[in-house]
């Protein structure tokens, strides 16, 4: 490293330190946010209603009817509150609520019943906690962008129609996004993020972990 480059580096540090503190959340800042969320669906596979065949019939189970099942993507709301441990690192806790649809396409009835798609809408809640790492980006002033990555885990709670049946599980998530600062004082903005949600438990036909995409857009306020 040359003497000149060291000089430039030190100058940059000094200038950065002299920048107005209000333009960036700092240790001890709080952030609240709320907005909309999209959660992807997943395939539940097919399930066939079968009868036991008699001797001398075609062999194998007798098909009563077939079903092809999936959970459709759902949209909903989310809300979060976060606390900045450092200027870069924040912890968050939040709730996500969506209403995905379970769909069963029924076909191949042995007595020719009309094919239909039966549905059920269920309520999905995720109560989660995350760690968020903010990159420096272009600052927290008006029009500034702050990229971030996040990861965490949560409690998954799903209620079927009528709220009479509850299914529970664990949810893990990770992803990245960007905060777009709207005000000159670095107090508010729009937050966009996307990532993956891994669900273990909750409503499913199999004992499988499901990975679904998640995307959200929200307004945030820092104080």
């Amino acid at each position: 490293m040359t003497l000149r480059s060291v000089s430039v580096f030190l100058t940059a540090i000094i200038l950065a330190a002299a920048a107005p503190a209000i333009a960036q959340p700092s240790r001890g800042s709080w952030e609240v946010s709320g907005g909309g969320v999209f959660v992807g669906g997943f395939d539940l596979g097919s399930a066939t209603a079968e009868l036991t065949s008699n001797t001398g019939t075609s062999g194998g189970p007798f098909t009563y009817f077939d079903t092809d099942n999936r959970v459709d993507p759902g949209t909903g709301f989310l809300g979060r509150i976060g606390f900045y441990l450092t200027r870069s690192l924040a912890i968050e806790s939040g709730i996500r609520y969506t209403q995905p649809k379970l769909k069963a396409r029924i076909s191949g009835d042995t007595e020719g019943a009309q094919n239909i798609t039966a549905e059920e809408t269920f309520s999905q809640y995720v109560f989660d906690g995350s760690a968020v790492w903010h990159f420096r980006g272009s600052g927290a002033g008006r029009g500034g962008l702050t990229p971030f990555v996040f990861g965490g885990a949560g409690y998954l709670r799903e209620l079927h129609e009528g709220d009479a049946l509850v299914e529970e599980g664990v949810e893990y998530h990770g992803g990245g996004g960007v905060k777009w600062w709207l005000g000159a004082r670095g107090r508010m903005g729009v937050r966009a993020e996307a990532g993956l949600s891994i669900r273990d438990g909750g409503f499913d036909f199999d004992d499988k972990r499901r990975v679904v995409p998640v995307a959200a857009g929200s307004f945030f306020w820092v104080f």
Partner: protein
Amino acid sequence: MMAPRRTVAVVTILVAALVAPIGAYLKLGTRVQSRTESLRWRNFPVRYFITNTGIPLVTQQQFQASVGRAFATWHAVETATTSSEFVGFVQASPFVSDGASVLGFLNRPEQDRTLAATTFTVDTTDGRILESDIFFNSVFPWSVAETGGTDRFDIESIALHEIGHLFGLSHSALGETEMITGGRRVIAAEAVMFPIAFSRGNISDRTLKPDDIAGISDLYGTSTFTRDFGSISGRVTKNGRGVKGAHVVSFDPRDGSLVGGFTLNDAGDFVIAGLLPGPHILRAEPLDDGDLTSFFDDGFGADVDFRVTFHDRIVAVPKGGGARNVEIKVTPK
């Protein structure tokens, strides 16, 4: 104190080659004033005797062993509490109302489509079963072979069906049949309590199906059954009016189990109990391809003029509770 009126119920439950398909469990019942009481045993173990008469290739000891295994299969249902005790061999024949439950062979060549049948002596004031006899028709060839006998009916399979009646279950309609010369033949079934037996040599009916287990558990359920399983209730309607005698099947896509019920009144009300919690698919069908008397009394008046229909909603069965007010709308044929 009023003495119980003892009546031999004319519930001749046949395992024959005549009746029709379609299915779910149904309980036997008796009218007590304005309500229907399920026939059930109030005291366990059920003590039974075996007629001291064998048939060619089946000794009474072999018969007793097969019947014992069939009883044990019902007792092994974890969500129901039943028990029985083999008392001994007797000279008495089944179908004699003598206070003793007797199982054995009778030669009934005139009943050429009846493999076996069950009768009851019941207390008609409360539905309590006092005695139940089962006869096996020795006109037919029988087998006690472990893997089933070629061209012979399996005693254990048929005994399992008849003992289901002995405990108070009626016929399930979970099956499909086809017309053949001289009657109907079962193509497939998913309940031991289906009224038509599988063909000779078949031993599939040694194993209870979810429909059978739901039925016995509904009658003699444990606290676990009450706590961990649920039900669906609702109506089958056509043009806004109830459909009587519809067969409603619940399918659990998670484990593939099929359990059914019937609409038993003019309002089209049905209840299907013994279901695992979770989403269920419902299918309603008319009992239009068989003998209605396999399921209901003469003059029941089942409506068979509607199309097989799936309910357009997936129904979530709660744990220890019921999904109620389900309405399956069917249309005329």
